[in-house]
């Protein structure tokens, strides 16, 4: 969360005057959004107990890594990409193939290459392959902006889904890949959910740190300038395309790491986890949380996860429709946000 020093200096004077404070609090949407989401999360944890919260926390961490990385592209650079799930999928499949050991070969109807690597050796390769895919895609996509960029990024999501589904020699197509190994260091396996949650949170922290460095460096300021006016920054001698390609690749590598974590966590992946709809939901999370803030992406992912879990307790809603009901709520939220708050809950950039 960006710290506004001016506000902090004004804080003591504000506290002394309760009526003024109440007025501030009432008009402060960001504050209320934070209180609502974090309070909801705490209430949920207290209510449901630690066991359930751990599983929900892992889902949240993976979505949060994805949305923080996507916010670099959408919020800070101003390229509305709907194809981010493709890089996530590249990471997930890389992890699945690299870590599956040859012993499972007999169980399979269709043979795929197996390597039997350990998790921590495979994770950098996930990031690298996702980055490689991003370079190839980025060189082609670099020339598009605004609406047309949205259209071609839809295209990337569809093409990558087609590749996952139809390149059976590597991905086993619709059958999916089973029995993906959990990570282990020496003798210690990350078998339990708590260990895996901690691992995911650690990677989330790393990703946030990297994003923070990217954003607060001079590189990040060039990205912001590209978002505001691409031609103006080119006049100053910056090659906008190089910067856009660089941030695109960084963001895709983070998504690749999220994919690796995801496939190791679920131990089973198939192309249905990487459909276009998931990507659209991801964009909805980023916009809901807030454009051009790292904290906002966390908030968005938290709200998204809480929305699904909270809907389990609506009495008249059948269980199989929870995902759909959440989608309806998200859709309506998107419309309302675009009407009244185009920067998202705590955003710094209006779309």
């Amino acid at each position, binding site marked *: 969360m960006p710290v506004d020093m001016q506000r902090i200096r004004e804080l003591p004077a504000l506290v002394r005057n309760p009526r003024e404070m109440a007025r501030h609090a009432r008009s402060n949407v960001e504050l209320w959004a934070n209180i609502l989401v974090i309070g909801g999360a705490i209430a949920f944890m207290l209510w449901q107990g630690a066991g359930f919260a751990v599983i929900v926390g892992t889902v949240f961490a993976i979505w949060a890594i994805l949305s923080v990385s996507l916010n670099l592209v959408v919020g800070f650079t101003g390229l*509305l990409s709907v194809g981010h799930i493709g890089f996530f999928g590249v990471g997930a499949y890389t992890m699945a193939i690299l870590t599956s050991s040859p012993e499972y070969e007999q169980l399979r109807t269709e043979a795929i290459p197996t390597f039997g690597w350990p998790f921590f050796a495979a994770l950098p390769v996930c990031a690298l392959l996702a980055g490689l895919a991003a370079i190839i895609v980025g060189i*082609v996509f670099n*020339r*598009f*902006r*605004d*609406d*047309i*960029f*949205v*259209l*071609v990024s*839809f*295209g*990337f999501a*569809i*093409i990558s889904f*087609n*590749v996952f*589904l*139809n390149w059976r020699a590597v991905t086993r197509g619709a059958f999916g890949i089973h029995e993906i190994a959990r990570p282990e260091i020496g003798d210690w396996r990350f078998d339990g959910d708590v260990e895996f949650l901690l691992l995911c949170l650690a990677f989330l922290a790393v990703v946030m740190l990297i994003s923070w460095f990217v954003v607060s460096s001079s590189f990040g300021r060039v990205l912001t300038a590209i978002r505001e006016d691409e031609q103006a920054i080119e006049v100053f001698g910056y090659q906008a395309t190089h910067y856009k390609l660089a941030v695109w690749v960084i963001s895709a590598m983070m998504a690749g790491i999220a994919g690796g974590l995801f496939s190791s966590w679920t131990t089973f992946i198939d192309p249905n986890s990487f459909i*276009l*709809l998931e990507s*659209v*939901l991801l*964009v*909805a999370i980023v*916009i809901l949380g807030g454009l051009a803030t790292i904290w906002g992406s966390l908030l968005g992912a938290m709200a998204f996860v809480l929305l699904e879990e909270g809907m389990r307790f609506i009495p008249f809603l059948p269980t199989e*429709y929870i*995902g*759909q*009901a959440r*989608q*309806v709520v*998200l*859709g*309506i*939220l*998107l*419309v309302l946000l*675009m*009407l009244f708050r*185009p920067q998202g809950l705590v955003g710094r950039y*209006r*779309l």
Partner: protein
Amino acid sequence: MSSQRETARGFPARFNIPGTRVLALVLATAVVAYLAWKIGQSPPQALQFAFNGIAVGAVYALLAMGFTLVYSTVWFFDLYYGAAAALGAYGVFYLRTATALGSRADVNNVYVNAVFAAVVGGVVAWVLYTLLHPRLRGRFTPNTIGVASGLLGGGAGAYTGIVLAFPENLHLTLSPAIGVVVAAAAIVVPFWAVQTFVPNIRLSRFTAIAGLPAVVIGAWCGYLTAGAPGAGLYLSWAVSCLLAGCVGLALYRGLYMYMRERARSPLIMLVASLGILLAVAAFIVIVFEAAPRPLPTAFGSETWKIAGARIKGFNIFAIGVALAGFAILWLLLKQTSFGRAVRAIGDDEEVSKVVGINTTVIIAGVFFIGAMYAALAGILTGHDTAVQPRMGLLLLLKGWIASVVGGIGNLYGAIVGGFVLGVVEQFGIWDLAGEWKDAIAFVLLILFLSFWPQGLLPRR
């Protein structure tokens, strides 16, 4: 003007790294030569693929026409368009699936009927008020006109609810509406013809003369419909097209209109309509199920063999529908004052407001027509294969690609682009599996945007 707009909307300039265009040309020639060789190897198969391509292309052309109409008027990508296609297809499913399939009886839902009845009622009330108010301003107060159109709109909503509640009796419930529509057409068409070709005639007297036979013709048509239960399927096409169109109009009037006033960029509109698409797609899954469902068989399901290729009668009908849709849209856009207004708004909305075009009404009409075309395309796809909730987004993207390939904002480009996309897709899967179709379409799009960003037939 036009070139400025296209760069502003994110259309790239042509690729100008030296050598790439030559390389692309060589590759394209190689692909064409390879295809020619394959066609030479087995002409019947090639004919089959070409026919399939044109049949699919007809649907894409319909989508692209509606899409390009909306886009070139308001200049943002309206993703509700895909939801309209799904709504149209599911409307037919809702109204016409036999109880034997075990779906309609438990699907027919009071809440769904009420939602659509409310939408239609609101739309009818608004249309009546906007049309009547300027004409009757001198004789009645605005309140009277408002109450009257509200009552009429409520009546229309109630009628829609009744129609939706008894889907097996569409031919009975819709026969009065058809009678009224035919009678109105029987008055309006001669009226228009007389006004155009005979100068200086007292039109009120003419209306009185033409009115009586018109009423008789209308009643007769209504009677014919009421006695023909087989017409139910085709009536359900009309009903679901109209419903999707009404939802589109209501969205524009209720949401997009306010949003466009304060939107800083077309991306805001795009994201908002993305939200609507998400909500409608999920709504469809909640009411129906996620699994693909077949629509009841229409006519023309038997196949003919022509020169070794299997040709389905329904596909020929789809091609006919696409051509008819093109003809209607051409007449509407190039021959009427409505079309002139649409083109004026597409060129410059502020100026057209200044010269006295009622932009709200015209754009609402554009949304209505666009959503109807999408719904029609969805229905044709549903009859050809099956309906599934995901079809909306895919059809939207196909229409989008087809209109970019043909040249966005150009009516001729839309129909050409649709057929080109269909044929390329089908020839593309000759050597690959059929599942690669969507990927091929997007590769075509990216190639076009890189090397030919204006499309086959640029707008002006």
